[in-house]
């Protein structure tokens, strides 16, 4: 049997590739990279909002926020587990992250100076993540697709909670409304950048589409996100910081302004407001915990020997 043709048949028929199936090396490597970066994003993504757990302004908000950040740790776990089905090693992937050799979503390199950021991250950042991730529930690699179903359900819940926080704040004091608008101003453009560079400049898109790892282009998903967000912003009563944002009846979509890709590339390459801090935080937690992991491993070995 020709393994490669069988693989292509499975992918073309929209069936799932499973861990023990034959797959091209490039497919495996692309998936490991994408899933690992996704897992790292969940783990680094715990920090900007985790920043507010100790100061959440009501006990209900504290519970919601803590549960959300906990979910992100859980998402990281499912995703590292999916990467391990491809032969990757979680410890090795973590090393790549803390040594800065593997990337995570650049959005988490922005700071969260006010509590409105918690709401706007839920609304816009999780909203953008959902647009990116829902199609991954049908991605060609089975374990990744199944992990994404659960991740997307939880992300959608987070988005709703974020939006509900913003609605509540908009019904509050003038100071609170100004906080929300300020946070929207800061997060809108970075959220649009979450979909990655324009299709014309996206190096990985074509092959990933062919392998059905990716199912829509960056620009298609970005457009979907803009169209989804505009009515939500209106309902909320905030202004999106783009004077060129306008409904285009002919296209049936919103036109929007030029994204500052030079900022995107600066942040990707390490010069964002929090790049150093985020990786250092992760590295410190990892290093401080080494003695605990060593103890657990040693204890398990002793138990095994005794058995």
């Amino acid at each position, binding site marked *: 049997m020709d393994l490669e043709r069988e693989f292509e048949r499975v992918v073309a028929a929209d069936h799932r590739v499973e861990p023990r199936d034959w797959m091209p090396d490039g497919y495996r490597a692309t998936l490991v990279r994408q899933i690992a970066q996704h897992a790292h994003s969940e783990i680094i993504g715990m920090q900007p909002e985790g920043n507010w757990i100790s100061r959440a302004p009501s006990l209900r908000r504290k519970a919601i926020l803590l549960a959300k950040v906990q979910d992100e740790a859980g998402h990281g*776990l499912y995703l590292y587990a999916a990467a391990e089905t491809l032969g990757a090693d979680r410890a090795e992937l973590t090393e790549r992250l803390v040594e800065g050799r593997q990337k995570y979503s650049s959005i988490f390199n922005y700071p969260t100076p006010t509590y409105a950021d918690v709401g706007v991250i839920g609304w816009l950042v999780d909203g953008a993540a959902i647009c990116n991730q829902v199609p991954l529930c049908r991605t060609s690699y089975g374990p990744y697709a199944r992990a994404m179903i659960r991740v997307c359900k939880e992300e959608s819940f987070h988005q709703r909670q974020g939006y509900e926080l913003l609605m*509540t704040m908009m019904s509050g004091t003038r100071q609170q409304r100004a906080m929300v608008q300020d946070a929207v101003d800061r997060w809108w453009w970075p959220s649009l950048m979450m979909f990655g560079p324009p299709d014309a400049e996206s190096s990985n898109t074509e092959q990933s589409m062919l392998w059905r790892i990716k199912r829509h282009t960056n620009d298609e998903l970005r457009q979907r996100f803009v169209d989804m967000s505009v009515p939500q912003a209106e309902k909320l009563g905030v202004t999106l910081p783009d004077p060129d944002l306008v409904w285009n009846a002919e296209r049936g979509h919103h036109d929007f302004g030029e994204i500052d890709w030079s900022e995107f590339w600066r942040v990707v390459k390490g010069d964002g407001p929090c790049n150093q801090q985020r990786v250092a935080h992760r590295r410190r937690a990892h290093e401080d915990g080494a003695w605990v992991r060593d103890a657990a491993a040693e204890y398990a070995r002793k138990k095994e020997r005794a058995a």
Partner: protein
Amino acid sequence: MDNAYDGLTDAGEERHWAFGTGFTAALAGVDRAIPDVDRAALAAYCLMLGDDALVYSQRLAEWCSRAPELEEDVALANIALDLLGQARLLLTRAGEVEAAGRDEDTLAYLRDEREFRNVRLTEIDCGPGPGGDFGTTIARLLVLSTWRLALLGQLTASADPVLAAVAAKGVKELAYHRDHAAQWVLRLAGGTDVSRARMIAGLERVWPFTDELFTTHPVEAALPGVAVDPATLRAEFDQVIDTVFGAADLDRPEVRQVAPLAGQAGRDGVHTEAMGFLLAEMQHIARSTPGAVW
């Protein structure tokens, strides 16, 4: 575009949201009648148990994104969430019994340090700050979960139906917390030389605050049948600790107990120096945005 998004939507929901927020209240259906006892004492007692849970939850949540393993980030956050849930029910009950219009947030965010009634062991820094490490955190988790599980076990028979219901919910949670702590004590004590030394150091850090846990307060003495007398918890506590220490080949720390101040300690609002910083951080947004709604 494919319609995978539709699969996330519940019937009758707006299309861009997946789930409703219609959680059932934790104590739905529980009788909220207030027993015929000294109301001020009952409100104070609810605050004691609520503040223990709130302040300890605040400390545990500091680990979130800093734990030695992702599994432990999840587990410690889970324990912190359980305690926060208990705190909310207890503070709400305190406000209800007091009947002065204070809700859970007024009580959590607008009381001063001297009005907090938690035992001091809940408030000290046991890591990830400079006051401890994961070993110290596990030592405190073992002590506090063993103690609180014994307490809530008795409280299930309280004449206050709300306290009894909170306790019935809480014992299931605390049984898991205690088990989690005990398993880590075994691993750390039986792992490497380093982890064993850190486990012992952690126990020595928290042990001086244990006597306070078993000291009967006048509020507790004033509520027979409603409150649990903590002096009666010692036997169960000792038995559990002896079992865990026996399995882990650990001795009880030989350290002296931290004395009260003029006979007063956490239950009387007399706290360690750590408490002011903890509250400053927890309360500052709520206090600096008067009139705000969250």
